[in-house]
C-alpha cells in the first residue's frame, strides 16, 4: 500500500542573523529574514527516501504566516508533492497546546496519513515538545529521536539516539516520528525540481477555523541574549607541553 507521509515544516527567524542590542541584551527580530528550520530538511529527506522506497506521497504541514510559503516552496523543490499551511500571523503568541491543536486541526482536513514526520526540534526555540504532544492529541504512538528508519508492512522500526546508548524501537502505523539531523543529509533541489515546485499548489486554512479553544497559558515576554563569558586560558611552553596541558585542563573541566 502506498505510504502517505506528512512532514511538519516550520518557517523560523534565521538565527544566524539575529541582532542583539548591546545595552539591553534584547534580541530584535526587526528585519531578520526567515528561513526553513534547518532540521526540518533532514526530516524531509527521511520522508522522501521512504517515499522512494515504498511509493506514495509526501505532504507538508506548516503553521505560520503567509511568509512561511518561502520555506514551503523550498520543501516542494526538494520533491514534496503537496503542501498545506494553517495560517496565523500570531505564531509567537501561541502556546504549545494551541500550536498542537492548530496542527491537529490541519491534519484532520488533509488526506489520510500514515506517518507524521518531525525534526528533533526547531532551530529557533528548540523545545522539542510538539511531536510528543501531537502524538498524544492524535492518540497514536510516538517514536522520538530516530537516527534510522525502516518499515516492514505496517511496522515502523528505528534506532533511537539517547545520550549514551542507542535503543531500537518499533510501533504500528499510524505514528508520529521525530528524526535527528544526522539521519540523512538533505538533498539539494535540482533546477527542474525547482521549476516543478513553482507549479505546485499550497492549500491554506485559517487558524481561526481550527477550533482551538481557550487562551494561551503562557506568553513570550521578551527574548534576551545570554552572555557567555569565555575563560581565555593561555598555555605556554613547547608544543608537546602545551598539548598535554590543554588535555589536562579539558579533562578537569569535564569536557573530555
Amino acid at each position, binding site marked *: 500500500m502506498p505510504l502517505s507521509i506528512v512532514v511538519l515544516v516550520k518557517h523560523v527567524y534565521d538565527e544566524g542573523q539575529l541582532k542583539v542590542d548591546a545595552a539591553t541584551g534584547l534580541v530584535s527580530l526587526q528585519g531578520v529574514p526567515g528561513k526553513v528550520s534547518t532540521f526540518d530538511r533532514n526530516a524531509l529527506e527521511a520522508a522522501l527516501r521512504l517515499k522512494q522506497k515504498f511509493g506514495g506521497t509526501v505532504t507538508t504541514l506548516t503553521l505560520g504566516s503567509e511568509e512561511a510559503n*518561502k520555506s514551503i*516552496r*523550498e520543501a516542494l*523543490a526538494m520533491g514534496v508533492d503537496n503542501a498545506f499551511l494553517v495560517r496565523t500571523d500570531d505564531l509567537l503568541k501561541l502556546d504549545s497546546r494551541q500550536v498542537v491543536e492548530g496542527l491537529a486541526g490541519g491534519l484532520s482536513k488533509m488526506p489520510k496519513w500514515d506517518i507524521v514526520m518531525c525534526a528533533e526540534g526547531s532551530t529557533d526555540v528548540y523545545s522539542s515538545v510538539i511531536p510528543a504532544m501531537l502524538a498524544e492529541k492524535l492518540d497514536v504512538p510516538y517514536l522520538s529521536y530516530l537516527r534510522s528508519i525502516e518499515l516492514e508492512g505496517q511496522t515502523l522500526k528505528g534506532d533511537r539516539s539517547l545520550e549514551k546508548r542507542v535503543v531500537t524501537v518499533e510501533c504500528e502505523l499510524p505514528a508520529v516520528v521525530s528524526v535527528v539531523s544526522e539521519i540523512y543529509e538533505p538533498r*539539494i*533541489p*535540482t*533546477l*527542474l525540481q*525547482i*521549476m516543478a*515546485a*513553482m507549479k505546485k499548489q499550497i492549500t491554506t486554512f485559517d487558524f481561526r477555523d481550527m477550533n482551538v479553544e481557550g487562551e494561551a497559558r503562557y506568553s513570550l515576554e521578551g527574548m534576551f541574549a545570554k552572555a557567555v563569558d569565555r575563560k581565555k586560558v593561555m598555555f605556554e611552553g613547547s608544543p608537546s607541553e602545551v598539548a598535554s596541558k590543554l588535555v589536562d585542563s579539558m579533562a578537569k573541566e569535564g569536557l573530555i
Partner: protein
Amino acid sequence: MKSGLAETKQLSEQQRLIVESVEELCSKFDDRYWRELDSKGSYPEEFLKSIERLGLAALPVPEEYGGPSLGLREAYLVLENINLNGGNSQPLHGQYYLLFNLTKFASPTLKEKYLTRLARGEMRLQSFALTEPDAGSDTTRISTSAKKKGGEYEINGHKIFISRVMQSDLMLIAARTTPYEEVNKKTEGISLFLVDLRDAISKGQIEAKQIRTIFNSQTYELYIRSLMIPEENMVGEEGRGFRYLLDVLNPERILISAECIGDAKWFVNKCVNYANSRVVFQRPIGVNQGVQFPIASVYSELVAAEALSWQAAGYYDEYSRKGRIDEKLMGAYANISKYLAAECSSKAANVAMDIFGGYSMTRDTDVARKMIENRLYRVAPISQNLVLGYLAHSVLGLPKSY
C-alpha cells in the same frame, strides 16, 4: 544570501530557490577545495559533476530538448553566487554562452544531435576557439581556414589561449571559409563549427599544448591539421559566423559582469570580516577611516555596477524572447556592465590586498588567488580598452579606433 551584504536585486521566488541551491552546493565545496585545486592546477571536476547533477549546466537548453529553458538572469545568478562563495565559475560561463549560441543559431539537426545530451549533463560544451597568435583583439583577422571537401569541411590553423580543450567534449571553432583578402566587409567570411573534441584529438587532427598561466586555468595552444568536420556541424549559415558571435558577445559580457560582481562581493565580505576582527594598536583596524572608506567606496560602486548589469540581463531576457532587441542599446548595456563590473572587482581585489596586509600574500587567506583569477576579466574575453573603444565609436559617435 550567505554573505552579510543585503540582496539589492528583486528576485522572483524561483530565482531565490536557484540561489539557495547554488549556495548550498557551494557550502560543500569550500575555500579549501578551491585552494587545493589551485595549488595542483586542476580542473574543478567534482564541483562540475555536482553542477551537472543539479541540472545547472543545462540551464539555457530549451524545453523541447529536455532543458529548463531559463534565461540570462538565472545564468547570471548561478555564476555570481559561485564566485561570491569563493569558487570560480569559468567553466560554466563557457558552457552558458555557447549554449545560448547553439540554441539561437544551430540547425534543428545539430540541436537534435547534441542539445538533448547536453541537457542531460552527459556532455560538456565548454570550449570556444577564436583567438589566434596573430589575431588577438582584432578577431576578424583570424586566418584559420575551413575548406569544403564533399560533405565535409577541412580546417587548418593555429589557435592560442583556448580554454578547457581537454576537459570539454565539444568545442565551437571560428574559421574563415573566405579569406580576409577576398571579402567586402572584414566581418564576412567567418563560419562557426561544432567540433567533437575527443574524436579530433584521438585522430591527431588537433594537437593541444597546455599554456602555463599564473592562476588555475586549463588553457591550450592548438595546432589544427586537416580537421574534418561534417557539413551538418556548421552552426548557422556559411560566412555569417561573426554576426552570430556578436550576438552572443552581449550575453557573454553580462555573464562576465555577474562573475565580477560575485568576486567583488567576496572581496568586500572578506574585507569587512577582517577589518572587524584584526586588532592592531589594540583596536580593530576597521575603526580607521583609511581602512573603512576604501571598502565603503568600492561597495557603493559594486551596488551601482550590479544594478546596471542586472538590468542589462533583464533587458536581454525580455526582448530576445519577444525578438525585438535594440542591438545598439543592448551593446551599450552589455559593454558598460562588463566595464564597470571588471573595474570595480579589480578595485575590490586591491582593497582586499591592502587591508589584509602581509596576510594577503599568504595562500590561506585566498585573497591573492581570487585577485589573480579576477584579473583575467580586465583582458579576456575582451579588454577594457576595446570596450571603451566600442562605446566611444558605436554609442558616442567618435571616430573608430579599431
